[in-house]
């Protein structure tokens, strides 16, 4: 008996339980909402999980293509990266798949041969965990980039270069700027 075959046979059950574990990281009433609201525009968090857990599981049972894994793990982790989770909590849902499989295939896994295959499968889950952690860090770095850029906007280099203000630091923290005028050198450098 091959584990991958067994897993594919139980796919629907595994993915459903995996989803349940993933939403347990939220408070009970939130988890309930994430499970029951089926409209992905009313429930983008639940939507990201339900759209991506199955493709992730398919890859784990199949080719383990890094690009495909990243494409499916990114939408989930991108959300968790802004949701007040510790890094470990943000990616913990990946590892809960081990528990899901052991629960669902409890009987079958008495077979020693399958246990050996499960060990191999666990390694794949670990790899996915690492990919998820990389994706998480990319998101966090993007957040820091955005914060740094907002700060740069607020320093209003443009005004200084255009000699519109003498000391930008006085104005720096109060600008309502979104995108820096600083990238518009063609406009501002004309002012001598």
């Amino acid at each position: 008996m091959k584990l991958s075959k067994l897993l594919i046979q139980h796919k629907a059950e595994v993915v459903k339980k995996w989803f349940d574990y993933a939403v347990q990281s939220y408070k009970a009433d939130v988890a309930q909402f994430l499970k029951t609201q089926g409209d992905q525009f009313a429930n983008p968090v639940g939507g990201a999980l339900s759209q991506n857990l199955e493709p992730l599981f398919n890859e784990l049972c199949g080719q383990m293509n890094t690009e495909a894994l990243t494409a499916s793990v990114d939408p989930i982790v991108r959300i968790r990266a802004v949701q007040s989770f510790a890094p470990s909590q943000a990616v913990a849902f990946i590892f809960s798949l081990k528990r899901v499989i052991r629960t669902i295939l409890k009987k079958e896994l008495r077979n020693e041969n399958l246990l050996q295959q499960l060990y191999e499968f666990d390694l794949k889950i670990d790899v996915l965990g690492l990919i998820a952690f990389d994706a998480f860090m990319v998101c966090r770095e993007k957040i820091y980039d955005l914060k740094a850029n907002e700060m740069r906007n607020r320093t209003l280099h443009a005004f200084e270069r255009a000699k519109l203000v003498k000391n930008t630091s006085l104005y720096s923290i109060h600008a309502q700027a979104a995108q820096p005028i600083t990238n518009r050198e063609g406009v501002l450098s004309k002012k001598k």
Partner: protein
Amino acid sequence: MAEDLPKAEEFLANIDYKVPDTAWMDTPAEIRKGMYCYASNPKSVEYLGLPNARKWNPLDDDWQLPENWQEIIHNGFKERLERFRSVKVFMDICVRCGACADKCHFYIGTGDPKNMPVLRAELLRSVYRNDFTKIGKLLGRAAGARKMTLDVLKEWWYYLFQCTECRRCSVFCPYGIDTAEITIMGRELLNLIGLNIDWIATPVANCFRTGNHLGIQPHAFKDMLDFFVEDIEEVTGVELEPSFNRKGADILFITPSGDVFADPGTYTCMGYMMLFHYLKEKYGFDITWSTYASEGGNFGFFTSHETMKRLNAKMYAEAKRLGVKWILGGECGHMWRVIHQYMDTMNGPADFLEEPVSPITGTKFENAKSTKMVHIAEFTADLIKHNKLELDPRRNDHLKVTYHDSCNTARGMGMFDEPRYVINNVVNHFYEMPANTIREQTFCCGSGSGLNAGENMELRMAGGLPRANAVRSVHEKHGVNMLACVCAVDRAALPPLMEYWVPEVDVTGLHELVANALIVPGENERTTDLRGEDLPETEDDADE
């Protein structure tokens, strides 16, 4: 982050990674970095004459409150319950049906139950029941009442600044409870003991002193518009002559200062300037800018009714000084909520002005009969409807556009169709986002009501997720690459939101699109748009 990390034994004790299910009253707020804005600069608080100006840090245990802070909050609450009938009603009539619960973008995005509008309101209601109702006094917690403590106060501050006052929840409330009103009142109470945020307090102080949120002085304001004149000349070959502070002009134009000082609002600003020039050349349109009333936005609205009134009054004082007939307002969100819902009873009626009539089409803007202030999207839609603008929408053919309804213009003043009418006349490729994310059900940008600071970026990204998710759907389905809006806070908040969630999509104001399509008398053949990007090849070009 490091101080928040879970310990190994916590992992082992909770191998299911399950969140403990404590009742909300037993779950104190944990103030987390990235989710709150910095405390106000005491100088700004002092300048505005607001109470308890001092340096303080939300992460400190001691918030340096006045000794009798509980009494101040209690009395402030009492006074507002008497003053605002709506607040009293909203405190009493909620039956906790939960219709609003999952409609808030912050709840959807953060997954934090205290961001359910009903629960956010319950933070205040619980104290209301304790302090002002018999049943609350008698039964205490059994009746949903609780005493005001320091933990409760901190919870108020944390969550009242995780609400953008967008009012999406109120659309779904069977009783019409406006949770934004509750947030507004809660923030007023917090201001009574000096619990403000700097992203609001300092722009308000700047605006009160200098006339705009950035504290930019009149000569700098004019210099920036002069830069735009040079820029426009480069793109079109036409030299504009905007008019400033001119007494006796027909109309005064006021826009958010973000349009003058921050991209991509600057392109929208150029759009206004080109439109005014066009109308002047063709129809003798007479409009002036003011370097004193140089801010349409009103962050005072996020502080207290009195502060909002002080900032709003400056615009009308300038209109009176210049002797104009009426005021045309730029693309802004909350500026219009203030005009539409508060101005008339706050500083109005502006009976020294005339009922706005378009000098070009003769259209009477009856919706602005009392405030005497017209939104430029309405004004331009009327011009197009009367065939007063010569337009070549093919110049926007490189854009696939969708439209984000600003909460304030949509839910606050009911303006849904005018911006869409304008867009459909100036671009050839327009696609709507899903129905439950636009018009009266529009999702907030996640950064309104003074929350578009840098330090709370995680909150902004989480709160903006439902909006971004809808943008992504039209990007994937139709190749949408431009998100149009009529609000300066949107133009500030949406670019980083897109950069995080849908980096292929850029942000524009409505009048940037108008100006790109507008055929200005005497212009050279355009080769680029206002951003300096090459125009798409038209069929005429291809034939040559």
